[in-house]
């Protein structure tokens, strides 16, 4: 602790400059191109040089095109039309267009808004219905934002958290137990559960940090192993009558939590924007403050940039590893509350879904920056919400949405590829630099 205090005076001014350097959206550690005003020429330059936002948009576009190819190539109607392309090329092209546009308009209507609801509102329908798709998007985005923040915090401290799934389970188990086994008044109960979930996730994260700090074991292996331990622990808890299995149940399911522990909803028809979404945004704000304004965050970023430099500057690298993983785990635990306390369905052995791994893609797309993670989470939430509607409306499996999401991340991580595809000029800088490559020993 003593070296900690010695480091602080010199750390403070550095924190301020580093914060301004990273706030300029490009996120390039080397300092991106200076950010000009949004004049016409600046916009043209941004497009031709392929700056972050442009790269993301182009990557999104390419991913949608590949997704369209997948949809068309697996549509029997379209394939039959193409088989007779020689006789009726128009039919083939129109069948292709119908197939893709039906799927993508359902995707849009399920996530952003549906024109039908607007005309309905003019004819005496519900105005709230217009915002229903958006509420679905926010609902789907909530757990993704939180696991994304979890992965992002670890990234900024130079570590890779594949273990958000395990930490999620840690949070879910504690929140569920507090939710059904403890009797508390309405608001207090929910708050206790939320804190419990944070602690539950943080403990799992802390284990990773401590083992890494003490023994130098790589966090990727530790987190993967802890994921499997937690999957099995959850199954064990939910299949043991005297532990967490719901009474008189043969299925692996926990008791439903008390209504006093449920997160309330804000307006609209169900599923509404829950308090969970507000928690996610608040967590993003807190993480943003932590990373760019606090001494601890400065230490995180210093260790992330160069552990050896951080050590010679008097920062305890081990302490940073432990704390970063503790906070990352806590955020993944919060993600669990938004599901466990935000939905009426009880905890099961599949509740953790793919939130942990989706958090990685969300954090990557958000460039490990808290507000970037929120935007990326909303984009993925929209795609997920729209994907469900698309599957119901057109029969196109929503898995195609997962492919599109992953493709966006892959393409955004490789700006040179996008520049190559769209013949964009190379900039002097590195452009949107992804998280630096470190390897196992990093």
């Amino acid at each position: 602790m003593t070296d900690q205090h010695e480091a602080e005076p010199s750390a403070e001014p550095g924190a301020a400059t580093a914060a301004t350097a990273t706030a300029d959206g490009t996120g390039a550690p080397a300092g991106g191109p200076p950010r000009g005003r949004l004049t016409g020429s600046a916009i043209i330059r941004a497009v031709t040089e392929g700056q972050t936002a442009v790269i993301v948009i182009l990557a999104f576009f390419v991913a949608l095109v590949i997704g369209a190819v997948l949809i068309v190539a697996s549509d029997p109607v379209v394939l039959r039309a193409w088989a007779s392309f020689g006789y009726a090329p128009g039919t083939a092209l129109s069948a292709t267009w119908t197939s893709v546009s039906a799927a993508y308009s359902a995707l849009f209507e399920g996530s952003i808004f549906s024109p039908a609801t607007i005309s309905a509102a003019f004819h005496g329908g519900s105005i709230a219905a217009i915002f229903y798709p958006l509420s679905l998007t926010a609902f789907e985005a909530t757990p993704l934002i939180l696991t994304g923040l979890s992965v992002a915090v670890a990234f900024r401290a130079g570590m890779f958290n594949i273990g958000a799934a395990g930490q999620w389970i840690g949070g879910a188990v504690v929140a569920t137990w507090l939710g059904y086994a403890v009797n508390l008044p309405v608001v207090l109960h929910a708050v206790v559960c939320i804190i419990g979930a944070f602690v539950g996730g943080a403990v799992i994260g802390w284990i990773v940090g401590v083992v890494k700090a003490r023994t130098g074991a790589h966090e990727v292996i530790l987190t993967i192993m802890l994921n499997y331990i937690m999957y099995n622990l959850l199954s064990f808890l939910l299949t043991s009558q005297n532990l967490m299995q719901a009474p008189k149940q043969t299925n692996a399911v926990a008791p439903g939590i008390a209504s006093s522990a449920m997160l309330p909803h804000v307006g609209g028809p169900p599923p509404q924007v829950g308090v969970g979404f507000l928690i996610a945004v608040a967590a993003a704000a807190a993480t943003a403050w932590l990373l760019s304004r606090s001494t601890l965050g400065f230490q995180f970023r210093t260790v992330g940039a160069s552990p050896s430099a951080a050590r010679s500057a008097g920062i305890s690298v081990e302490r940073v590893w432990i704390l970063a993983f503790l906070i990352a785990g806590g955020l993944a635990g919060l993600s669990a509350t938004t599901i466990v306390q935000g939905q009426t369905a009880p905890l099961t052995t599949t509740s953790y879904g793919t939130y942990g791994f989706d958090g990685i893609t969300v954090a990557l797309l958000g460039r490990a920056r808290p507000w970037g993670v929120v935007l990326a989470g909303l984009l993925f939430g929209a795609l997920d919400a729209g994907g469900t509607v698309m599957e119901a409306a057109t029969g196109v499996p929503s898995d195609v949405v997962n492919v599109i999401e992953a493709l966006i991340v892959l393409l955004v991580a490789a700006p040179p590829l996008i520049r190559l595809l769209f013949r964009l000029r190379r900039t002097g800088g590195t452009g949107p630099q992804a998280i630096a490559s470190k390897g196992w020993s990093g």
Partner: protein
Amino acid sequence: MTTLTAPVRVPVSISRRYLAAGTFILLGLIDILVFGFFAHRGDARFALSLPGATPRLPVIHVPGALMSYVLGAISIGVGILRAAVDLPRWGKRLSIAVVLLCFLLSLLAWADAGNSVGPLQVIDLLQGTLTASIPLVLGALAGLLGERAGVINIAIEGQLLTGAFVAAAVASVTGGVWLGLIGGSLAGGLVGAVLAIFAIMFLVDQIIVGVVLNVIALGLTNYLYDRVMAPYANTFNAGNTFATIKIPVLGNLPIIGPIFFDANIFLYITYALILVIQIALFRTRWGLRVRAVGEHPVAADTVGIRVLWNRYRNVILGGMVAGIGGAYLTVGSVGFFTSDISSGFGYIALAAMIFGRWTPLGAVAAALLFGFSFQLQTELSILRVPVSSFILLMAPYIATIIAVAGLVGRVRPPAADGKPYVKA
């Protein structure tokens, strides 16, 4: 063990020596206090031949509690020896093996003693261990082919999954299981090629490409499964499998025969690949170059070794090996593809590779440990052992954490692993 080990012998840290000894003694105490004291009255029975097999070996009867006491005493003895004497390298490895074996045997004795279901089917257990290890071994070999050349391959899971999907589809459409195997291997190689292009040409973080490729592989196979394979299952998912090949003479040996020499072609391919890769990596010029590229690409480049070419080739070769592992999951075992059939084997293979310190034989040992625990869980549920199978399933993961945390010494990856090479 390899030419990579530092010539100077680092003095063994005292704490690790006592840590290992303490763990051994702890395991010995568990043998005695848990498996010994809580053993049911009666003998533990071990059946050494499959039901109906010839020649038929007698079922071995051992008093359960007594066996655990003896095994526990051996473990404690080894632990004391480990603490008292600075054992040579092979001695340390042997001591770990002995203590683990004692622990497993006493667990089995405890599980079977006084059981009404019947004797423990030892052959079944070991046979299952081997077949369950096939995708893990091949996945780990795929990983270390890439990593020895300096490219981290987290996409093993995606390569297994794509290999499994394509193998099932090709075998089903063409009716040829061999074509399925080749198709699966090529599909894995394709995923490897994408990984190589993004990691080597575009310098994207290798762990990130790997994770993203896994997500893409899962999404793509799920999508095509729901959209094409499941609705037209007769055409695309007919469930063709390889037949079992019993090796003449060797396959008739008692105990060894059914375990090692009576399986389908995938087990024999796995033997061959283990042998070839182990020898190629450490005994050939090819292997020396690969390792040079993975340890010190600048030096390798200076003497005229083509660094990037080596990396591309190895990552793609690795993908093809993992693709064979994926093909095993469908045409080598159940025949049908199902959603997420690889179910995390790729990540476990990754752990096996690290656990095995980036050597083929080490990775095989680690993969067998995982395979054993999967199969053990099946056997114990047959014996209706009153322990939740989920606790048993946790064991290998906990063991891996203990291993990477330093019980078996610090693992050291190839020096340039994960670092893109840009010519100066």
